[in-house]
């Protein structure tokens, strides 16, 4: 959709908003179109931040292996999320980003956003099970992601054509209504599988789903918990030739299915991130922000606000479905509860608020925080509980606190799996005291000379959400 920018667009101090001033931490146009002399500084800082974040995620699996094997391995295993968990962070983070793209940038709370996620998730499995007409069960995964996205665009345009006649709570409720209709439908439609309420899983497809260039085998890597590819880099001359003397020059890096999935899913999410980021910083993104701040004014200065909203919703639906597709591509099963159900969108909301509402990457970090805390407080993956059990010793664990209630039981009741409680408390504290989220707040500090502008922009954003 081509949007011509009105000549008197409201808040552009410079003309370079779409010129690649990409900063991981600054999504608000106003924050980076400061004055001419800061442009280069901003540009460099932006790319330093990007490079740093990409390097961090790129090295994470190695760092994780290294650190958990070190002297403080037990402590590290407790704090660092496992690589599998990070994959969840990637695809759900992308979903949260797509949610925030519409909700945080235009101010229209898409409470039924799980519709897109569910659509993508179900679409991938249904095709793999040969349940979608015209599409063979062997259709390449990348094609499926694209088709799921396009399907979501169609759904978004249908929903949006009705929903964007409303604002505020009403908009949130009608999108919720649509998503719940799909939820009920997909929970009960027996065409999907024998027990639709419990969800469906990939049945026929043997080779798993691969990410890469479609139809070019050598440029694809399979993802999945079980079926994922492994990857070996380097040459083990010693093993190849049988000559032990070659061992010193034999270096290989072997990536297991988990790591391969991590990199491949991460790659897709990274590409999506750059696309979203690009859109946000384009004239179209500026139009979205103009709508959030004051829709009437945006209309008055010449934006076709309905088309902008529809376009934004379609884009956000597209990426929501891609995220859903990645989810089932990796997990190979889905249930209505973890896809179409409205609380899935609630989790995206959580991630967005903690990470930074109205920032591009914030929701991903919000989700990282959520998953990290969750893992920290569950038995699996070496969180706090196994650590406490191994460190505290029998004596302490069996100490009675009150009335036959032991330390071990207290841990069980107050910590094990109680991540929801602490996430909830944190969420409440964030809403009350850190309304801009992690990234939004960080942006405030990093802004330096533009700090004032950031604050003003944030205030405008907050005020722009209308009932």
């Amino acid at each position, binding site marked *: 959709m081509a949007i011509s920018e009105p000549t008197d667009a409201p808040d552009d101090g410079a003309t370079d908003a779409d010129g690649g001033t990409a900063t991981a931490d600054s999504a608000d146009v106003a924050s980076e179109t400061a004055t001419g002399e800061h442009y280069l500084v901003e540009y460099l800082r932006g790319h330093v931040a990007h490079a740093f974040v990409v390097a961090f995620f790129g090295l994470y699996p190695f760092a994780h292996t290294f650190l958990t094997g070190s002297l403080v391995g037990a402590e590290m295993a407790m704090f660092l999320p496992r690589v599998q968990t990070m994959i969840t962070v990637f695809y759900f983070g992308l979903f949260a980003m797509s949610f925030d793209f519409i909700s945080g940038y235009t*101010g229209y*709370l898409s409470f039924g956003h799980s519709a897109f996620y569910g659509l993508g998730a179900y679409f991938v499995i249904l095709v793999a099970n040969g349940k979608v007409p015209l599409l063979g069960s062997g259709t390449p995964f990348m094609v499926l992601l694209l088709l799921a996205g396009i399907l979501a665009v169609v759904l978004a345009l249908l929903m949006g054509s*009705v929903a964007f*006649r*409303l604002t*505020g*709570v*009403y908009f*949130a*409720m*009608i999108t*919720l*209504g*649509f998503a*719940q*209709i799909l939820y*009920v*439908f997909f*929970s*009960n439609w027996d065409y999907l599988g024998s027990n639709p309420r419990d969800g469906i899983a990939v049945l026929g497809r043997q080779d798993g789903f691969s990410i890469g260039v479609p139809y070019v085998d050598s440029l694809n890597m399979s993802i999945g918990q079980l079926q994922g590819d492994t990857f070996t880099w380097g040459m083990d001359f010693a093993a190849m030739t049988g000559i032990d003397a070659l061992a010193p020059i034999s270096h290989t890096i072997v990536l297991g299915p988990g790591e391969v999935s991590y990199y491949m899913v991460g790659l897709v999410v990274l590409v999506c991130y750059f696309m979203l980021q690009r859109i946000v910083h384009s004239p179209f993104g500026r139009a979205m922000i103009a709508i959030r701040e004051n829709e009437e004014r945006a209309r008055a200065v010449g934006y076709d606000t309905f088309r902008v909203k529809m376009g934004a919703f379609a884009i956000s639906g597209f990426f929501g479905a891609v995220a859903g597709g990645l989810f089932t591509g990796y997990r190979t099963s889905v249930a209505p509860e973890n896809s179409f159900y*409205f*609380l899935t969108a*609630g989790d995206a*909301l*959580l991630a967005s*608020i903690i990470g930074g509402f109205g920032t591009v990457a914030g929701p991903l970090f919000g989700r990282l925080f959520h998953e990290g805390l969750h893992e920290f407080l569950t038995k699996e993956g070496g969180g706090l509980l196994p650590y406490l059990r191994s460190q505290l010793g029998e004596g302490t664990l069996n100490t009675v606190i009150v009335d036959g209630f032991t330390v071990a039981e207290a841990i069980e*009741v*107050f910590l094990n799996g*109680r991540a*929801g*409680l602490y*996430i*909830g*408390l944190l*969420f*409440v504290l*964030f*809403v*009350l005291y850190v*309304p801009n989220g992690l990234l939004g707040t960080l942006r405030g500090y990093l802004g330096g000379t533009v700090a004032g502008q950031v604050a003003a922009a944030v205030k405008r954003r*907050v*005020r*722009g*959400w*209308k*009932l």
Partner: protein
Amino acid sequence: MIPLVSLVDAALHFLDPAVLARVLFDGLAKASIYVMIAAGLTLIFGLMGVLNFAHGSLTAIGAYLGGLVMVTFAASASGNVGRIALFFVAIVVVFALLTAFGGAMEVSLIRPLYDRPPLYQILLTFGITLVLEELLRMILLFYDIQPSTDWLAAQGTRPEVISKTHDVFGLGVEGLEVFQILLGVAITAGVWLFLTRTRYGLYIRAGSEDGEMAQALGVNVHQAFTVVFGVGVGITGVAGALLMWDSAWAASINLGAEVLLPAFVVVIVGGLGTFRGTVVAGVLVGFVDAFTTELFTSDIVGFSALPELFIFLILVGTLVLRPQGLFGVEEVGGH
């Protein structure tokens, strides 16, 4: 597609007086429940414009608190009269505790957010619901009550007269449904009288239309907010206590999510902030629920989730055709 023959069959099925009477009666009982679970929500939204996402978990807390009173004292209150009397004690206790809790919640958590856009109140109450649900789960686990399944001990405190199916003119009438209808009507009437016959009700109605004007006329709207939030939460708790006896709902941690969406639907369909609208929408949803349930149970339609589907269809349909709801005024709170 439903063939024409079965449409005729369906019509004939509903013309059977026994079926019709049962559907209408079920509808009335369901309507009572829908009105009850939405009443507190609509009061709070009407005056304060706060869409309380913690509504569902507060209902669940009410169910457990009511159940706690019943289970604790059931042994000393036997017989129909004793149990029903105890139930009334239970709802008084639930109402008092949850009203106090709601008031405290408004003062400490919601009040700081009035200067911020409504989104933040939605976010905050959404956060509160996460905390409440986990706290409840923790307490239940502490007392070895399985949180995610129905609390059968509480259901077991139903007096015989309510558990039984009575024979009235040859029709089977469930005692529980009669009880739900009576209580639903009584509480609806109570809220109605509070709103229309008391000075405080007048302030609430005025304040929900134009809070600023009411303030300028000397009404302490802040205090009214606290009272309304408290009373709204109290009523929500009472609704929960009523659901505790009903095996279709029952006290469980999932009750919150089960209640939240239908309550939203009733409030929105009725028109945000009008109690009359909520009552009418509750009745509408109740009858549609009863009718579609009958369509499934009599094998006319093979889709078991028909009632659930229809609830959301009603929501979407209303928002498309009449966004302000059946009785809503356009731009309520839009000053």
